[in-house]
């Protein structure tokens, strides 16, 4: 096996002689102490509550509450309706019903801008498709969702404010880049993902939803994302973490909601959660798929 990093040859060795941690440390260039860093926080008051959310077949009567000082994990198999749930919350896809409460007050979300203004934001699943304007600069990408802050009444953009915002986002998260004018699409996967998240760090968000934030990025970048989620948690921001990778949900989340076939099928505190329990909940409806449900699913 040959290990490369940053376009350079690092080392080579027989597959049998290397264990996971050696491989990782060569890949990253330093020792990764913890694969899943965990920070303990006091669970505080409820921040964000979703009540009876219905949006198409993939989001059926979803209700949950997220609390201060916790990372709320969403586990489930592919196609369990988690991404659809996040999109419905964020106002991207239309919903049939559902109420949202932020810090005890009901908020209306009908389009993404409503959610953004009120501090509920989404770092979407597929960064190339949904997360970034890859042809635009890093600066433009960070600027885009925050134009309501950086532009005045007439819509003229205040460049100084944007520069401040980009600096703030950059400080929170070390994105490796030559300068902030390079194409977002030229960044590595990990840095692109960091950029998707850092768009939301430039403003005061209350709830940040991470949809599969670690898919297809390297180990070091994954740990940075986990660390960031922990920091946000410590700051009292509600972190909602959707992931299909069971070990990382178990390693990072404080509470886990399991979805199957568009419905919430269980909720587990991290102390009681195991892979087996999650899997059992995640496949609850799998064997109950009746014949009349099948064409419907194919349609979706």
């Amino acid at each position, binding site marked *: 096996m040959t290990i490369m990093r940053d376009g350079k040859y690092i080392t080579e060795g027989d597959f049998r002689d290397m264990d996971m941690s050696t491989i990782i440390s060569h890949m990253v260039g330093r020792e990764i102490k913890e694969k899943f860093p965990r920070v303990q926080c006091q669970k505080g008051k409820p921040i964000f509550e979703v009540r009876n959310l219905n949006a198409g077949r993939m989001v059926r009567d979803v209700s949950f509450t997220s609390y201060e000082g916790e990372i709320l994990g969403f586990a489930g198999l592919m196609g369990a309706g988690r991404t659809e749930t996040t999109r419905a919350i964020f106002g991207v896809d239309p919903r049939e019903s559902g109420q949202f409460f932020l810090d005890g007050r009901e908020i209306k979300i009908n389009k*993404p801008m409503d959610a953004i203004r009120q501090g509920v934001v989404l770092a979407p699943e597929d960064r190339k*498709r949904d997360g970034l*304007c890859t*042809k*635009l600069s890093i600066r*433009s990408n960070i600027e885009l*969702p925050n134009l309501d802050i950086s*532009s005045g009444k007439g819509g003229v*953009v205040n460049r100084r404010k944007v520069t401040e915002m980009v600096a703030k986002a950059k400080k929170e998260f070390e994105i490796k880049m030559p300068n902030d*004018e390079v194409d977002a699409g030229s960044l590595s996967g990990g840095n692109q993902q960091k950029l998707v998240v850092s768009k939301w760090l430039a403003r005061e968000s209350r709830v940040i939803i991470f949809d599969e934030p670690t898919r297809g990025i390297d180990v070091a970048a994954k740990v940075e994302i986990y660390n960031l989620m922990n920091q946000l948690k410590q700051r009292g921001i509600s972190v909602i973490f959707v992931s299909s990778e069971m070990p990382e949900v178990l390693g990072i989340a404080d509470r886990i909601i399991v979805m199957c076939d568009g419905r919430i099928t269980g909720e587990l505190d991290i102390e009681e959660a195991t892979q087996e329990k999650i899997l059992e909940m995640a496949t609850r409806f799998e064997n109950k798929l009746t014949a009349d449900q099948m064409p419907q699913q194919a349609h979706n």
Partner: protein
Amino acid sequence: MEEKKQNPVKKVLSARGVGQVVTVSIGLVILCVIFNFINPSFLGKRNLPNLLRQIAPWIIIGIGQGYVLITANIDLSIGSVVGMSCMIIATLICNGAHPVPAVLVALVACLATGVLNGSLVAYFKLPPFVATLGTQTICRGVAQLVNNNMNTDGITGAKFGAAAKTMTNIFYYQKTLGVFNTFWIALILWVIFNFILAYTRTGRHLYAVGSNTEAAKLSGVNVAMTIIKAYLVSSFCAFVLGLIVCSQTSTGTTNAGMSYETYAVAASVIGGISTMGGTGILSGVLVGASVWAAMDNGLQMIGTQVGLKNVVVGLIVIVCVLLDVIRRTGMIGRRKK
């Protein structure tokens, strides 16, 4: 990370879209020098004002097409909207209307076309090529219908002939500060729309939608509204050009503005506004329009046949797009896919 101090000249050159504009500008200068060498009256006192006036139409519709191209769409209805605008104004004046309401009616009709184009593309998700091809035909049809498929009489002979005469002077024949008004109109439009594109929220939205519609939506951009705005700008520019064409000829001609949409695409594309969306700056339209008009005028000045002229101009468009593609694919090659 430490920021390296950049040479200010270098910084400007490395800014988005400037590269192509600089390259084409150099080409333009060389072109002008060659034409002037062959025929020294090319940049002479008599031809220069004409040349500037010939640039104006391509700047005006180049702006409109540029806006639409930046959102990764295309507007093929521009030429017909020019014709519709021209015919509505001329027909109304010839039937005894004052030029002011006549122009306003044309404006409303053109803006309605813009909304229609934008809505078809944004809400009904029609491919922009097909949607605007449809409106292209419709608008040409309207241009023919308003005066029973005939060109109008001279507008200066109508009831408000004097006012019409003033209109033709203001929009085509008069000069301000030694330059024809038509060029100033184009320049003013360019300044306004360049400001909107480069310095306002709407401008940022246009680029975002053109780069990645889904990401723009998830960043809180109202995608449909942004696309409609782009088509509105396009139709508005076409309306202005219709007014200018009407002033130039003092009549309404049913085939006014025929195939102008392709010229608008050429002006934008030569100036580096990619048809793929999300890239390019409006300065490119100035340069692109200049190249277009300089070729048109210059080849005529040195006595080239019309057919040959078209061949050369067409080749230049292809070369410009090719250069753009080569540059882009060069970049893609270095990038991880």
